[in-house]
Structure formats: structure tokens, C-alpha cells
């Protein structure tokens, strides 16, 4: 897996330059990469990072209780899937470096920038990248040792000042009560920072904040950087978008970049059903093939003829994903919601129609919205009167148990499900529910309600196409081969393709036919390409 491109095909920067460019394992990605890179590498790096982020997404749905646990789980998963370099980066402690490390840092750098371009074009993609890159950064930041941390602090240019002992004494009680800390309070240093630079800590109520100033112990400095990283990336994504829209003229790259997210973490096929689902079947499907979250919402809608806004959004997009057409969708919602006394067709058209059309990208911003995945369902808050979100997280255990008994799940399965739910392992709980209702294991752990549906249909339809839906093959669609072809670059026939140069495990087979020399011929100037300062 540790793929190092062969010398003769790629333009490789000098080690000494690499050392200077990448003094740290962790970077804030403030300066775009320079130098040249082969097209193949460009694509490989991006696909690989995309996969890494997808694995992270899976880890995040598991909701581990501490950062360390999350990191461990993620490391193991990366190793299992063969991403050793990323596993290493994730746990890298700082600035020690051999050549291999440098290579990995360069890859990290370039791939981040390529994804920035590819994920800049739509808002939900931007959000996906923001959430997952920030999380990745956070985990890696936490790996740094103390020495390197202080080096990093110095170079970061973030300003903060230490509070006096006097102040600490005066505000002792509040500091103690409101700060999350381990170890000795007496020896802890606090720093003053504007509250908007430690959004994470504010969000979780983990810091003492007074008149706009947050008093942050050094152990929580990670929050400062996470906030900084995130807001910087948010700005940069918008600049990247501008760049792609106005300045990116290379056909091959444009095609690649525009299509990369379409195999959105390999999920587009999972999310979008290829078949139409008639609304007359929804009742039955909700019992056989819906994940619990959607089943509960469907049921609630059927009995109460109403769902609150976020519920309508989540369930509506799920329906869109499983192949309910816009017209059917409108009819479905209308027929349900107008059963409520105070809603007639006219009122429905005024209050709710717009949102349905909006979800399908027909009105307003005309964005083709994707059904939200498990991470969003788990993380998004649920308020009074609402029943959306992940039932394994948001339902009290006894409520959950009641529901499952009602759905005739066997007692032993119920026990297991509620055990997983209390432990915060929601996707395992969901998998167990699947097993219990299908008498069969799903092929993959779930990270998307529509994926659940798809897997269920696959089993229930006894369809033979199973292998085709593994994520690997979805990558194939976007393999450099297809892309170069569609970009109409001539691929000479009968070229001596050596099997020994495998760019990455996932796209190995497909790449065989590609002219490896092309990489050299078409090597790109990354500086010109990625330096989005050009506007």
C-alpha cells in the first residue's frame, strides 16, 4: 500500500525541500502545495483521502466517548483497510521525520488541496469536508507531544495571554466549576482568549467565560486550533469554489474534480436508489426495509398526520433517496398531512409544498439535496415535540424497548440493541435491528439510512448483484482510466503496462490499461493549479 511512484514517471521534489516545506506532521494547510505532480498521482491522492474521510465518517457515527478511543478505532480501521500512511499520520507525534514521513506529509498536503477544490462546489459537500477534515485535524492535533505542540503554537500566529495569579485567585470558584480538567488545578495555567476562538469549548460548556473572554487551560488549546482550522477552511472552500468556477481550464481536471464527490465517499449509489418506489408500497416497506429511524417517523406521520420541520426534511429526503418521485412525494405528504383537521389542501400548498419541491431542487436554491447520513442524524439536536434523528441515541431506553416489543423483535435482540444503544454504539444497534428483521447480516456497517434500505432490498429481492455494490467498485467508476477517457485523452493501444506499479489498492485493476507515461507527459504545475490566490 505504501505506494511511492516510480522515479521515471513522476516529478519528485528533493528531500531537502520537502524537509523545509513540511517540518510538522500536522499542518494548517495555509500555503498551497508547489511543484509538479502527475495526473495519476493527483487523482490517486484525492481518491485515497476521500476514502479516509469516509472511514472517519463511519467512526464518528459510533460516538466513542473519548478522543483517544475514537483515534484508536480510526487507526485500526485505517490499518485494516490498508491506509498505513494515514494511520501513521493520525498518530504522528510531531516533527521527527524520515523520508517516508515527508512523503506522507506531502501527500496529506496535496490531497487536502485537491479535495478542497472538489468539495467546494456545493454547500452540502463543503459541509461534509468541513466537518470531517476538522475532525481529522482534531484527532491528529491530539497526537502531538508537548514539545512539538509548543513549536506549533509559536508558528501558528494565534495570540493569547496568560492570566495573573491574582485573577486566578479571585475567580477561583468559577474557574474550577466551569473548566474541564484533569490533574492539579493549582498548577494549571489559564489563558485569555476571545470566546469565538474556542467555539468547541463554548459549545460543550467546558470553559469559564466572562464578558466575552474565555479562560482556557493549556490542556484545552486544541479547541483554539480546531476553531481556527475550521473557520479558515470555511473561507478557503469558498475561494476554491471561485477558482474552480472561473479559472480551472484543464478539461481533465475539471471533469475529475466535478465528478469526484459524486462517488461521494463511494455513496452515491447507496444513497440514490436506481429504481422508483411507488408510494403505495411505503407502508409495507416501512415495516420490512426501513431503518428504525425512518420507520418511526413514517409511523408517526401515519398516526399523527404531522411531522415537525426537521423530521419532514429527514424523512422527505430519505424518500427521495429511495426513489420516490417528486409528484409521488407531494401526493404522499399531502394525503397524510391533510388528514389533520386544521389542514386543508390549500393550507398544505401554502405551508408545506415549497419544502418538498425545495428538497428535490425544484425551487429556491435549486440544489439537489442529499439525504443526510447517520452522523447528521446522530449529532443534530432533537427538540420538544420532535421525533426525528437516530432512535438509538435520542430515545430513552425504555421507550426504545417498548417500540421494539411492539415491532415484535425477539427479547434477546432487544437486549442486545439496548445494550449497544446505551454504550453509544448506535450503528451496531442498527445492525442488530437489521439482523433481527432480516435474519441475515448486512454486508457493511451502516452509516446511512438509505444504505440500510438498499441492503434490505438487496436481500429481500434476492437479487444476485451483490458484489457490485461494494465500495471498491464504485471507485472504479472514477478511476483515472474512465476520467482520462472521458476527457478524451488518447490512450495508445498496446502499451507496455507493468503490473508492478500499483498506485493504490483500490483502483489497481482498472489502472492496468493506462499509459503510465501519460502521467509524465501531462504532469501539472500544482502551484499554478492550486494556488487559488490567482483571482
Amino acid at each position, binding site marked *: 500500500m505504501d505506494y511511492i511512484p516510480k522515479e521515471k514517471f513522476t516529478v519528485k521534489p528533493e528531500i531537502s525541500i520537502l524537509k523545509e516545506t513540511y517540518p510538522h506532521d500536522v499542518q494548517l494547510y495555509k500555503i498551497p502545495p508547489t511543484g509538479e505532480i502527475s495526473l495519476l498521482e493527483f487523482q490517486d491522492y484525492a481518491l485515497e483521502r476521500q476514502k479516509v474521510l469516509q472511514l472517519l465518517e463511519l467512526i464518528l457515527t459510533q460516538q466513542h466517548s473519548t478522543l483517544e478511543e475514537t483515534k484508536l478505532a480510526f487507526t485500526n480501521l485505517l490499518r485494516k483497510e490498508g491506509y498505513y500512511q494515514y494511520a501513521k499520520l493520525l498518530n504522528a507525534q510531531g516533527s521527527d521525520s524520515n523520508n517516508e514521513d515527508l512523503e506522507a506529509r506531502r501527500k496529506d498536503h496535496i490531497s487536502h488541496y485537491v479535495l478542497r477544490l472538489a468539495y467546494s462546489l456545493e454547500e452540502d459537500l463543503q459541509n461534509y469536508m468541513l466537518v470531517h477534515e476538522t475532525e481529522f485535524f482534531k484527532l491528529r492535533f491530539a497526537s502531538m507531544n508537548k514539545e512539538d505542540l509548543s513549536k506549533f503554537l509559536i508558528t501558528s500566529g494565534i495570540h493569547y495571554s496568560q492570566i495573573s495569579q491574582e485573577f486566578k485567585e479571585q475567580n477561583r470558584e468559577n474557574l474550577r466549576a466551569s473548566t474541564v480538567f484533569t490533574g492539579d488545578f493549582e498548577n494549571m495555567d489559564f489563558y485569555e482568549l476571545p470566546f469565538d476562538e474556542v467555539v468547541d469549548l463554548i459549545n460543550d460548556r467546558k470553559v469559564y467565560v466572562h464578558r466575552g473572554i474565555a479562560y482556557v487551560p493549556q490542556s484545552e488549546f486544541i479547541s483554539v486550533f480546531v476553531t481556527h482550522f475550521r473557520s479558515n477552511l470555511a473561507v478557503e472552500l469558498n475561494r476554491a469554489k471561485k477558482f474552480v468556477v472561473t479559472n480551472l481550464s484543464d478539461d481533465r481536471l475539471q471533469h475529475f474534480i466535478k465528478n469526484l464527490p459524486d462517488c461521494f465517499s463511494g455513496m452515491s449509489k447507496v444513497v440514490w436508489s436506481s429504481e422508483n418506489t411507488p408510494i403505495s408500497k411505503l407502508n409495507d416497506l416501512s415495516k420490512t426495509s426501513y431503518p428504525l429511524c425512518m420507520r418511526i417517523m413514517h409511523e408517526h406521520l401515519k398516526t399523527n398526520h404531522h411531522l415537525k420541520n426537521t423530521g419532514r426534511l429527514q424523512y422527505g429526503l430519505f424518500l427521495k433517496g429511495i426513489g420516490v418521485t417528486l409528484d409521488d412525494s407531494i401526493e404522499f405528504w399531502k394525503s397524510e398531512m391533510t388528514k389533520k383537521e386544521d389542514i386543508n389542501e390549500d393550507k398544505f400548498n401554502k405551508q408545506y409544498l415549497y419544502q418538498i419541491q425545495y428538497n428535490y431542487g425544484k425551487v429556491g436554491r435549486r440544489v439537489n439535496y442529499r439525504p443526510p447520513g447517520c452522523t447528521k442524524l446522530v449529532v443534530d439536536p432533537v427538540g420538544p415535540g420532535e421525533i426525528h434523528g437516530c432512535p438509538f441515541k435520542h430515545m430513552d431506553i*425504555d421507550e426504545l424497548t417498548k417500540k421494539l416489543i411492539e415491532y415484535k423483535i425477539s427479547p434477546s435482540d432487544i437486549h442486545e440493541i439496548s445494550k449497544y444503544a446505551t454504550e453509544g454504539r448506535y450503528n451496531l444497534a442498527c445492525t442488530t435491528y437489521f439482523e433481527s428483521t432480516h435474519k441475515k447480516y448486512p454486508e457493511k456497517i451502516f452509516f446511512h439510512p438509505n444504505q440500510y434500505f438498499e441492503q434490505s432490498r438487496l436481500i429481500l429481492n434476492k437479487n444476485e448483484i451483490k458484489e457490485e455494490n461494494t465500495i471498491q467498485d464504485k471507485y472504479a467508476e472514477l478511476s483515472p482510466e474512465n476520467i482520462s477517457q472521458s476527457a478524451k485523452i488518447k490512450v495508445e493501444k498496446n502499451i507496455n503496462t507493468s503490473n508492478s506499479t500499483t498506485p493504490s489498492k483500490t483502483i489497481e485493476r482498472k489502472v492496468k490499461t493506462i499509459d503510465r507515461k501519460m502521467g509524465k507527459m501531462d504532469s501539472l504545475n500544482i502551484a499554478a493549479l492550486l494556488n487559488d490566490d490567482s483571482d
Partner: protein
Amino acid sequence: MDESSLLDLLPLYYSRLFPYIDYYRWLSCGEANTFARREFSFTLRDDIYIRFQSFRKINDFKNEIKRLCPYKIDIGAVYNVEPSNKKREVKFEPIQKEFVIDIDMTDYDEIRVCCSGADICIKCWKYMALAVKILDIALRNDFGFDHILWVFSGRRGVHCWVCDKKARFLTQNCRKGIANYLQLITGGDCTKKKVKIRKMHHSIKRALSIIEPVFIKICIEEQNMLGTKDNVTKFLGIITEDEMRNEVKDVLNKHLTSITKWEAFVSFFKDQIQSGSKKWCKMRYLIEEIMIQYAYPRLDINVTKGLNHLLKSPFCIHPKTGKVCIPINPKLVDQFDPHNVPTIMTLINEINTFDTKEITEQGESTDNLKRIKDYKKTSLNKPYYIFQEFLRSLENSQKGEKIKQSGMVFIQRQLQYLHEF
């Protein structure tokens, strides 16, 4: 309020009473350019809804309002370009907006017994008063905001507009952070225990110090928190362990009224903690959690999070109640009674009464009448005063900032000048 009289009265209200000048002062934040890029949206008769309206000048705004007589005006963000021109721009994005909070009484339906849905009474309004007090101090003390406008939403809730410069330019992520900081009650219909305190953060402690003195009166007595079978079942749901729930159930069953039940529960709980019962000690903040769940503000958090989310404007007329969305003085919120809020009808009557009286007293010389502003003849006088006071201090801070800026420029120039020599 029936629709036909609303239709008759709105033109009068918009031409004689709506405070255009102060409104413009407020929303322009000291810059004409800001007002011009501000999104307004209107709800007209028959639920016709138009978004992305914007106005370069105060008179454009005034004339359009008078022409359309909207049932409802919503205020949105300030964008990079004028919203009415947005189609011409590739990129159209919100730049700034007040930090806003929306609290709606319907979110209290699971804990209030006096009314439900759109109704409110003086009893459940107390929740709103608590919310205003708790949030106002949190915004001031914790986040350092000074320019906070509280507004009655016209029927059953309150809105909060934080207008400090820093608040207006908060990122979406940061808004979300503050919203979550302020939101202690989470979970939908399937979560019975909605508050989990792991650490007694200073903001929670302060909120409790506001809730505690009135908890028994408002929640236990007036809302009869433990007075009926249903309410007791709801309450017991908060205790998630079967065994412990049954223990509490037994304790409660020995008493009859809401208040004696509560007292019995509290002393039972305290005894358990003192005797060092392990399972109870795991929930050492149970009493606090219950108080929060029954009395802490319930925010509609999505309104706060979104930079481009719209919120109903102050000084609108609520089309169902006819009441004016008037500013509230947070210091006197306990005295605020939503039933005494003037309706469009009373306002017009007040003007007429005043005018007739003037005419009978002063004769036909109408000079005096013209000199007195119409709102001063009505019960809007006081709310307007609250608004103007708020504006005065907001503008002072804006002036201070401008002076600071120009001062900086001046010093820089001086330095440059020195440098050149």
C-alpha cells in the same frame, strides 16, 4: 381579530404609527449601505409570501410598506449585494446578522397545564419572564453583549435581538456554539429525561439561582407539576432506572398535593444522598436537572444557528391577535402582561379619542395636533421609549467605534508622516 378589520386598520397603522425613522436607524447599523443590503420579506394577504426584498432608502421602504400593507414583516441578514439584485450575482451570501433567539410557548406544552398551543395566560407567561431573565444575563455576563433588544412576538413568545457589532459578525459555527451553550434541554418526544448535568458550570448555577426562588410557586403550585396522575407519570419518566423510579413512586403516593409530594421527594432524595446510596449519588444533580427541565428557557435553536434565517420584525401586527410586537424591558419583564399589549384596534381608537378631545378643548386650531407625534397619543409611547433608549446606547457605541477607527487612521498618518522625514 377578524381579517376585514385588519385590512382596514393596517394602512392607518403603517402611515401613522410605524416608527420608520427609528427602525431605519436600528437596521442600518450606522451605515446606509447596510440597510440597502438587508433582506426583508413580507407576508401579504392570503399567505402570499415574498422574500429577498431590499430598499436603498428609507423612503423606498416606507412607500413599499404603505403600498403592500404586509401582514407580517420578517427581517433577514445583510448580504454581500442588495438582495433584490441577487440574481445578477454569482455568489450571494449573508455577511452579517444580529444574533437572535426565538422562544415559543408551544415548546412548553409538555410542562404547562394551564394552556396549550397558541393560548397563553398570566401563569405560563411566567416561563417567558424566566427565560428573558436567564438569557439576558447570560448574554451580558458571559458573552459581553450590551445591546440586546427583547421583543414580544405578538402572541405567545419572545424574540431577542443581540445587536453588538461582534454579535452581528459571528460565524455560523459560532452562533451554533452559543446556541448549544444556552440550550440545556435537549431531546424530543422519545426522551423523558431531557437534562443531563455533568458539571455545575457557572452559567447553569446562575440560571438555577434565578429559577430556585420561584420554582415551587410557578411549577409545583401553579402548573400543578405533581398534582395529577398524568403529571406524576411524566415526572417519574425523568428517573430512568426502574428500581429507583418505583422507590420515588412509593414516596409520592403517600402524599396528596403537588407541593407535599415535591417536598417529600426532595427530602427523600437528600436522605439517599446523605446516606451515601451509590445509585442515587450517581444522579447527584437530579433536583437541579428537574428544575432545569421544568423551568429553563426552551429555545428554537435553528433560528439562532442560521445566518440567513428570518425572524419576525418588531412593530409588526400579529394578524391573529392584532397585537403589536413591542419591545420589552428585560429588567421589568415580571410586570409585562401580554394581555395588556395594545392591539391595532386600541391604538387607532386612542388616536381618535385624543384628537377629538384636543379638538373639543382647543377648538379647531389643529396646530397642536400636528405637532404631537401620533404614537405619543397612544399606549405605544412607552414601548417606543424602550426602543429609543436601546437605540441611543447602540448608536453611542457605534460612534465610539468610528472615533476609535478614525483615531487610528490619524495616528497612522502621523507616523507615516514622521517616517517620511
